């Protein structure tokens, strides 16, 4: 996902001179193509995320679309108030780019585990969460975000994710993307966000949930809740999957979206990380296994 991100950003920056990239002293062997192509639009803020985020807001207030890149927890929790007050409240086009979403940095330990980031971001009314499930969706999200500049959170995996789309899909906030049709009756579905899509695909490749259609939801947030009822009601069973804690995560967002639809809520099954993984240090796959998500 990281490479798809930088390739697409370099491409978009060719025609969009407003795009700037800020990094918090991170991105070795990833961000150089942007830095080489646009040295005047690349800034290393140093290890100072609070300043980086407010500076990004300052740049955005003058017309830039600022991409702020760091490892998942640093451009989010480290500077939550800067995001809340300077970026989201002022509705400025800053895209917070978190690399290593979920447990992608499993062996680096809890400081690098982004398992509460949706919780933080989805509580902000003016924030669009962008959680692509594969490299094609990374490109799709970037195309959407640059053509609809606004406060946004782009959560990337790390590297090596499978391409599950044949081409770059066209996406809209709150609208599910179909990935595969099931072989059975069309009334069951899995809905994944972010790296949950790779987990769901693994399930199906392992022979589970073969009677479920597979969908991805790469763009969501507070303002897309009202779009969910119509999509859920087509299925008698819906399984949500995410590599985030259930608490204040994606599945909980779906539950809240259906708060006035108790019959639809009964159709939901929510798959998420188990809180017991917090503080554990192991590979991403191993920690998914500990949450019964493998």
């Amino acid at each position, binding site marked *: 996902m990281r490479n798809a991100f930088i390739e697409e950003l370099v491409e978009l920056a060719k025609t969009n001179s407003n795009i700037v990239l800020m990094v918090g002293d991170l991105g070795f062997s990833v961000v150089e193509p942007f830095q080489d192509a646009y040295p*005047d639009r690349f*800034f290393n*803020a*140093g290890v*100072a995320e*609070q*300043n980086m*985020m*407010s*500076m*990004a*807001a*300052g*740049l*955005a*207030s*003058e*017309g*830039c679309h600022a991409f702020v890149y760091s490892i998942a927890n640093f451009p989010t929790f480290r500077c939550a*108030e*800067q995001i809340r*007050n*300077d970026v989201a*409240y*002022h509705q400025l086009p800053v895209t917070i780019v978190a690399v290593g979403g979920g447990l992608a940095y499993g062996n680096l330990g809890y400081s690098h585990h982004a398992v509460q980031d949706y919780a933080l971001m989805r509580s902000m009314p003016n924030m669009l969460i962008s959680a692509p499930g594969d490299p094609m969706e990374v490109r799709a999200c970037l195309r959407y975000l640059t053509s609809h500049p606004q406060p946004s959170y782009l959560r990337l995996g790390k590297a090596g994710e499978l391409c599950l789309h044949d081409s770059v899909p066209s996406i809209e906030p709150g609208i599910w993307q179909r990935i595969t049709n099931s072989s059975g009756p069309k009334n069951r579905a899995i809905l994944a966000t972010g790296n949950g899509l790779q987990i769901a695909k693994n399930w199906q490749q392992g022979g589970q949930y073969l009677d479920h259609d597979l969908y991805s939801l790469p763009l969501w947030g507070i303002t897309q809740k009202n779009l969910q009822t119509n999509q859920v009601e087509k299925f008698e069973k819906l399984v949500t999957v995410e590599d985030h804690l259930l608490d204040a995560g994606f599945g909980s967002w779906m539950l809240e979206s259906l708060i006035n639809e108790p019959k639809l809520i009964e159709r939901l099954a929510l798959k998420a990380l188990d809180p017991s993984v917090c503080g554990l240090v192991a590979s991403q796959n191993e920690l998914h296994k500990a949450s019964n998500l493998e």
Partner: protein
Amino acid sequence: MPISSKELSKQIRVSALKMVTKAKASHIGSALSIADIVAVLYADILNVSPKNSKDSVRDRLILSKGHACVAVYAALAEIGFFPKKDLESYGDNYSALMNHISHKVPGVEFSTGALGHGLPFGVGKALFAKKKKLDWRVFVILSDGELDEGSNWEALMFAAHHQLDNLTMIIDYNKLQSLTSIEKTLGLEPLADKFKAFGAHVIDLDGHDHLALTKNLQAPEVGKPKAIIAHTIKGRGVSFMENQVIWHYRSPNEDQLAQALKEIEAHYA
């Protein structure tokens, strides 16, 4: 006839006192502390116009100590960014003139309230202007207690490293924090040396001296961000408010307002 900085500073004090009294709001001491700084900026320094508050070539003023907003609201109304009568809505339910500075008020660049946000935001703007070779300037008014926030020092490091000489910081050094003095809270001295060590061009001056402010705010120092350490008195202009922590919180009653206005009328005639 443009308003003089002295007349503007008087009007700021009068309006600020009336606003906080009516709204029963806090922070009058902090607003009186910067009344002269704000007056000099709007009367003599800033290239801003109420005719086009979003003009791309305007100078940008950011009040990082957003709790002192009545000083800026009063100045903006006085020079025509919005009707003076609107000041009466300060602190009312749903008023744009909320009790910490709001970007929804004409002429205000940025909402603050949480401390330590204004300087990093201003650095972003200064960086933009520098990269685009634009000659407008960025001014940020900071409180002294606000310098406890590390984000300011992160921002200053960046500004100095990138030689953002289009950035001017004005520190309202009234030496009182929320509960007691700076000295008893987290001492800032040697403050000038700290700014110098972080790469700023530093000037110490009397923050109530209009001539000194005008002279030192006029031209940037080439190659370095400028830090003006403005020595001020919290509550300046009202005898019973000066240097008293309680006026960080208390709003005047009608008798105190009358006394305060009388003193200002006499002193700034």
